[in-house]
């Protein structure tokens, strides 16, 4: 009886392990966005962010993009101060939204910075994605707003915004893993 129980336990453990592995593999597959590096600098009285983000689009997303569907990427930036016993103190939050779409007539890829409306065209998708992932001197916070920068960190997170997709695509994007493109949270110190 005891033996049988332990066997059941073992097989249960095995199932659990398999489940965990499956979850991990799903997560690994879903990682189409990877924040490779990020740093901050202070310039002219404000903090600026430099970051390199690698975007890898899945087949489904590429197909949609080439069929004229605009893809929106959202970069969430949070400035926080970690605390030992309480949740982290939030100093500032900002969201940068970029729209990537294909221009059939010129055969180019257009990247539009939705926060400012600024638009740039690129000859290839790779160039467009590179430009998308290359964040240079993005002003994130006025230094005057933060008296003590000691210990403050910047957290970065980038994802494909499925809610900005055309409505018919949303249910698909909601249930399909191919549309769940997101990075992991990346943390770098806020440096002056």
């Amino acid at each position: 009886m005891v033996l049988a129980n332990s066997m059941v336990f073992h097989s249960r453990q095995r199932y659990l392990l398999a489940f965990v592995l499956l979850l991990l593999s799903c997560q690994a597959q879903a990682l189409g966005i990877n924040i490779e590096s990020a740093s901050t600098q202070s310039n002219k009285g404000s903090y600026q962010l430099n970051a390199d983000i690698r975007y890898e689009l899945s087949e489904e997303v590429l197909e949609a993009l080439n069929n004229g569907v605009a893809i929106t990427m959202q970069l969430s930036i949070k400035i926080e101060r970690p605390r030992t016993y309480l949740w982290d103190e939030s100093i500032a939050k900002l969201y940068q939204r970029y729209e990537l779409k294909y221009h059939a007539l010129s055969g180019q890829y257009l990247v539009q910075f939705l926060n400012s409306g600024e638009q740039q065209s690129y000859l290839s998708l790779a160039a467009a994605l590179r430009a998308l992932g290359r964040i240079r001197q993005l002003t994130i916070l006025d230094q005057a707003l933060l008296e003590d920068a000691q210990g403050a960190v910047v957290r970065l997170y980038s994802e494909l915004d499925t809610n900005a997709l055309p409505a018919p695509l949303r249910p698909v994007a909601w249930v399909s893993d191919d549309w769940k493109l997101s990075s992991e949270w990346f943390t770098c110190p806020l440096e002056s």
Partner: protein
Amino acid sequence: MPIRILKRLTTGPISAAVLSVLLLLSLYILGGATEDSASFNQQYVILLITILVGLTMLVAMIAVNVIRLYRRYKASEPGSLLTTRLLVLFVVIAVIPVSVVYYFSVDFLHRGIDSWFDVRIEKSLDDSLELSRSTLDSRLRDLLRTTELLAVEVADESAASAILRLDDLRQRSGASEMTLFDGNKIVASSNSKDEIVINPNRPDEAIFTDISFGRNYAGLDTIPDVGLQIRIVVRVPLLRADLGVRSLQALYPVTARQRELAASVQEAFSSYTELVYLRSPLKYSFTLTLTLALLLSILSAVWAAFYTSRKLVAPITDLAKGTQAVAAGDYSKRLPLPVNDELGFLVQSFNQMTRRIERARNDEQLSRNKVDEQQAYQACVLSNLSSGVMTLDGERCLQTYNEAASQILSVDLSHIQGKSLHELSAQHARLGRFVEILFEQMEKHQQWREEMTLFGAGGRQVLVCRGVPMTGALEASGDTLIVFEDVTTLMQAQRNAAWGEVARRLAHEIKNPLTPIQLSAERLRHKYLDNMEPESAEVLDRATHTIVQQVEAMKAMVNAFSEYARAPQIKLEALNLNELIDEVLDLYRDEESDLKLTISLDPIMPHVEADAGRLRQLLHNLIKNAIEAMQEVTAKPEIAIRTLCMQESNCRYVELRIEDNGPGWSGDSEAELFEPYVTSKQGGTGLGLAIVKKIVEEHGGMVAAEDRPEGGARIVIRLPVLHSKGQDDAET
């Protein structure tokens, strides 16, 4: 508490209706969201989750109902079968049409969406894009050639002089902006607005790479703040060794019309390809919405079916339960009134019916109680009557009797209840006469009265018997009511009283002349005896002597009679019978006498309530009586005296037995023995035993005389114990 709330929620019609309406609303919004891409970004997911949660709740509510119904069905509760049938019916009626509509809707939807897309439109859009591109290409080629020629002109310009040159070239070529790059560094720039160009547009890095490989670039680009422009980037011919790889970029404006057209083509193409691409997701989301609507409809319908069937069946179930209760005899059940429809009318009628039945039953119960009361009353009266009462039916069978009847007849009548009276005479021979007379009289079918004497172990018994045929409703049955009374004691008492009276008269009338007779006789003797002739004197002497002697005897007899007749006030007191007996017997313990006394007294002897003097007289009488009886027949007289503490039924009494070995009672009947002037002895007054009986009766006891089997007589006297009320009728 939460369970009750959950139960209420799962059974209440309002919650389900509200839930259904909410879900319907959500579905409507969801349907709108599918079409309108601008709004409901975040809400879409929330809506979907809301609907799914709502559906899950509906499913849970239905599941609860299904389980409950299954349990009721298993327990075969009334109404569960009907509920199930109605439910199945409703579900079938609801599900089949909805499913059919769903099938055709999905089919129609798919075909409808497919029909939006036309191969010819797609082709023409492709063609227009192609046409636009080729038009653009030819213009691009022209401009590329022009720019290449211009590049030659700036080939030997230094950085300082290049600005002026560029200005000139720009004006000639009609470009809106011209910039000279060295590598990817700006050397000089000029634009149409004649402003100092601070930040001219820079081509893509990829273009510089192409230039370094000698490939020129011509393309339609979107320029920030300006819009669509033609961008030409060419390599500047290397004429001077001190200059690096330089490139010239010229941005040519596109006319508004061209821009408009290009934008239109681009827009149309883009929209169409997007639409084509979105065809399957669109179908997917429409089908999803439709499926959710289907599920909502079906689940709501199923729930409604549960609710409706339960509502419909509830009064029927109530009726079934009510009927069962009525069948089990519970008429107090009232059913809750449902809505005012035919079922409500039925339930109302049922309630009315049970109310009436209950009232009728209560009335019946009341009258039955009254009858019972009357019967109990009559039974009480009957059982407390001193007369015996019996009823016989036409077949001469005993129907009813009272306790007194059993006692008078000394028979347990319960054994022959319902049986013929022949049984009674068969079992008890002494009652044969009684039964015979009853039957004789009953033949006459009229009221009768008869006095009869029965002889049994208990002695002579005189009964006065009266028979009345039943009248009224019972006349036809031939029943007869028989009332009889034991008048033995009464007659005895009457006789005793008569004797007492006789004795008193005798004492009074006879005793008075006796003294003068005696005195006269003695006077005659005194006066004449001495003077007379010896012969005559002897006669006189004998005659007077006889007179005096007989008068003495008569006096003694009269005294005895007056003793019997006298009824002195007896003084009852607690006394020990054993001690009294010892005391009395001491007088008879004579060493020289032949009499042998055997005494056995019960050591457990409770006190009796008696007059000691009277009891002493009683004992003397009995012993004297025995001695006298034995003198005639036996040389060895023996008297045995025994006391016993007896306890029969609930009556406690002491028994005194006096036995002798004399001739016995020689067949005299017991009752006559104790009557005055009945004697077997010569010279007895016949009052001895009569006085004994009188004394015993004065003490509430009883006396009996019987012959001993081994010869001799026996007197048995029973006296009640102190504080135990004497009962003459305790004879068994």
